[in-house]
């Protein structure tokens, strides 16, 4: 079944603070070992978003977008 929501992370804006991982009540975001071009470790979306949009709102770097309608 297609997911209702998906979380998109703009990797060029992310600074790897992982507040999104901390705030997510569904454990839909996790720390990864991948880094962006500036060397910051990135979070990754692992599925299971319930659309509360707390990650979107807390992100200090405006790097997160919760999209309705699952993976494109």
């Amino acid at each position, binding site marked *: 079944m297609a997911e209702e929501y998906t979380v998109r992370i703009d990797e*060029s804006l992310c600074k790897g*603070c*992982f507040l999104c991982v901390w705030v997510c009540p569904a454990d839909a975001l996790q720390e990864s070992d991948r880094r962006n071009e500036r060397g910051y470790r990135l979070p990754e979306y692992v599925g299971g978003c319930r659309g509360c949009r707390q990650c979107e709102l*807390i992100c200090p770097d*405006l790097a997160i977008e919760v999209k309705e309608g699952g993976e494109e």
Partner: protein
Amino acid sequence: MDWRELIRWERMPHILCPGCGNGTILNVLVRALAEKFEEGELDPDKTVLVSGIGCSSRLPGYVKLDSLHTTHGRPIAFATGLKLANPELEVIVVTGNGDAAAIGGNHLIHAARRNLDITVICSNNYVYGMTGGQASPTTPQGAKSTTTPYGNPEPPFDLCELVMGAGAPHVERWTTAHPHQLKQAIHRALEREGFSFIDVLSQCPTNYGRRNDMRSPREMLEWLRENTSTEDEPGKIRIGVLRDEERKPFHERVYELVEEVSGDEEGG
């Protein structure tokens, strides 16, 4: 309006440290403003952001609205001039604890006393973050900073009590761990006539957290969540709507007086 249209993307990513609370305030502020513009309650051409000096005062530079980046501690003084010269403007001051409570402390209390019709969003991260983490008037007693390496011997200012004591009609306190509530608070502040003050307890992991056993932004947010309450609980910082009243704003009284006095001259 989509909030993305309000960001100066050519300046992003911003200069703030990873996990900086000011970033969350910027995020919440542009979304609240975009919603207000969308609802037609505010006009982007008549909305001005004013800031002083400090990390939080850099935020208006990332927003595609008219703004004034003023001298240290003086954003409220500039905002007073703006509002009195053109009362049609919606004036929002983005300031920090050092800017608003220390060097600009007098402007803050007198704007509250006069009931100047502006919204003041104060990012209160307990230190002077930009200059390396010196103690400020809101540093908690016992907290470590570059200028209080053995713990701060001074009691801090409660900024909400301060402005309420000076007569501010709309006062709220939230934290960066409550971004949704903060967005609603900004909505309310923009709707209210008169002086609105939002004290946003915020995290500076770089210059406050790491000296006080909270090295990561997450630890700081956990501290903010655990040590605040929307009810009066002993040992916890009270957050929420602390006062919501109505009082005639300063510019209305000034313009009424001008009309009254000039009318007298014409009549006499």
